[in-house]
């Protein structure tokens, strides 16, 4: 990586190096979608009809992976109520399971902390993500970014919405909120996604982690000298029990928040567009009545949650839905399985923005519920409004033989959404 040779502190040189990196195609990172599984849902339903809780990992027909005989058998949960029960009981089901992978790439973060440490640390950054605080960014930031992206293809009549919009707007929004120079986004976007997909490629994930650390080091120095109106300036001055955070703690926060902001909304907004484009009647309904956008987004989060697997560890032996769980067992919550639980939703596999509103676990649940949920809702709404305001006759327009689909296991989204449109 061009960056490692640069040392941490020469910001101008870093900028120059970064600006030499061109924006890239999300297709390049296809292998980050750990497991290119297109439709895991029939398997989840089959499992759920046997039992909402299973001993062992999900087998998608590739044969079961080798289990380590020295650790308790892992547990897979595909039922809604059972998923909620695990996420709510954060004393029994610990987040420490994230130590293994995420601590290596991100450092110690709130993702792996339990109470009360989790609450104290989350409170340092959560005010930035409250809906009232975010409201100022709607017009000032998000709409402008999306309009600029639309300007770049408005004359063409045809575009890939993933490449042109969903892959590009969330990273620019979170960059501004954190306080990272927006023009650097092609590089930190790549690192963010590579970091998140460390399970698919360990060396690449670790290299991305190191690159981000060096990059943040320079930004932190700058913000200490010249505080601005952004989260990094907050973090360098905030105190916990009378102590400022040390640099490593701040890097950890940023290595969590940047990928979280970059990757999840890119996938979630892509899934919403996929749902609407494959159901043109519902797309038209939303076009006619923009007040339907929030419920359309909630339905897409239920139907295709972008982060589809959450992990916990049982701290002592217990039982869930009658299935015994050994103390120390890892518990995999398949959010996509929970969100299509036939016992909770009618026609769960159907994308229907008019269904009777029920809660879902697309943002997770319990004390670790997505901290960026208000940001995700706001920026996806603004992006869809901009798309509908400016692009008429929007429809999927794949190349011959091109299969447009959502794929992935832990993270799910469409790789591309080629559309034709008429400029308004």
């Amino acid at each position, binding site marked *: 990586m061009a960056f490692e040779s640069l040392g941490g502190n020469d910001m101008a040189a870093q900028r120059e190096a970064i600006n030499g990196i061109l924006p890239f195609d999300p297709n390049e990172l296809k292998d980050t979608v750990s497991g290119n599984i297109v439709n895991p849902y029939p398997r989840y339903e089959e499992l759920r009809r046997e039992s909402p809780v299973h001993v062992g990992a999900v087998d998608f027909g590739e044969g079961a992976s080798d289990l380590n005989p020295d650790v308790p058998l892992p547990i897979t949960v595909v039922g809604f*109520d059972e998923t909620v029960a695990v996420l*709510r009981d954060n004393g029994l089901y610990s987040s420490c399971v994230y130590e293994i992978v995420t601590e290596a790439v991100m450092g110690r973060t709130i993702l792996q902390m339990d109470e009360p440490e989790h609450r104290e640390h989350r*409170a340092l950054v*959560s005010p930035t993500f409250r809906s009232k605080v975010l409201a100022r960014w709607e017009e000032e930031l998000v709409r402008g970014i999306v309009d600029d992206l639309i300007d770049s293809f408005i004359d063409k009549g045809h575009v890939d919405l993933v490449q042109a919009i969903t892959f590009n707007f969330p990273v620019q929004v979170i960059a501004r909120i954190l306080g990272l120079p927006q023009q650097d986004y092609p590089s930190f976007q790549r690192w963010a996604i590579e970091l998140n997909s460390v399970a698919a490629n360990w060396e690449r994930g670790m290299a991305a982690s190191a690159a981000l650390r060096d990059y943040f080091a320079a930004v932190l120095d700058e913000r200490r000298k010249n505080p601005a109106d952004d989260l990094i300036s907050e973090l360098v001055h905030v105190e916990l029990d009378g102590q400022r955070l040390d640099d490593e703690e701040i890097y950890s926060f940023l290595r969590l928040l940047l990928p979280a902001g970059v990757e999840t909304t890119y996938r979630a907004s892509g899934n919403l567009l996929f749902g609407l484009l494959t159901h043109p009647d519902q797309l038209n309904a939303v076009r006619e009545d923009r007040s339907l956008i929030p419920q359309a987004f909630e339905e897409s989060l239920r139907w295709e949650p972008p982060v589809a697997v959450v992990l916990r560890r049982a701290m002592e032996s217990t039982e869930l839905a009658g299935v015994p769980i050994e103390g120390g067992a890892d518990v995999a919550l398949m959010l996509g399985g929970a969100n299509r639980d036939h016992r909770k939703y009618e026609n769960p596999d159907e994308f229907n923005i008019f269904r009777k509103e029920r809660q879902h676990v697309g943002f*997770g*649940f319990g004390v670790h*519920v997505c901290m960026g949920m208000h940001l995700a809702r706001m920026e996806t709404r603004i992006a869809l409004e901009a798309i509908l305001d400016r692009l008429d006759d929007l429809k999927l327009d794949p190349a011959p033989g091109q299969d447009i689909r959502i794929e992935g296991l832990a993270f799910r989204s469409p790789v591309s959404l080629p559309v034709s449109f008429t400029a308004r």
Partner: protein
Amino acid sequence: MAEIRIDLEKCMGSGNCSYWAPGSFDLDDDGKVLVRDPATDEESRLVMAAEGCPVGAISIWHGERRIDQGAP
């Protein structure tokens, strides 16, 4: 008329309630839930807010009968 009951000990300040029923719920400066005016939201929204609370800090009552399901 529905009554909102809050368990402030449980409240984690997710703000999800104010998304589902913005007239009824808000967060104070410490990030804890504040009840505004329950009459401004339809009862179904209050129930969504209660069932959408990630930590189950909200319940909705008709007299002594609880009308939300306590969980999603």
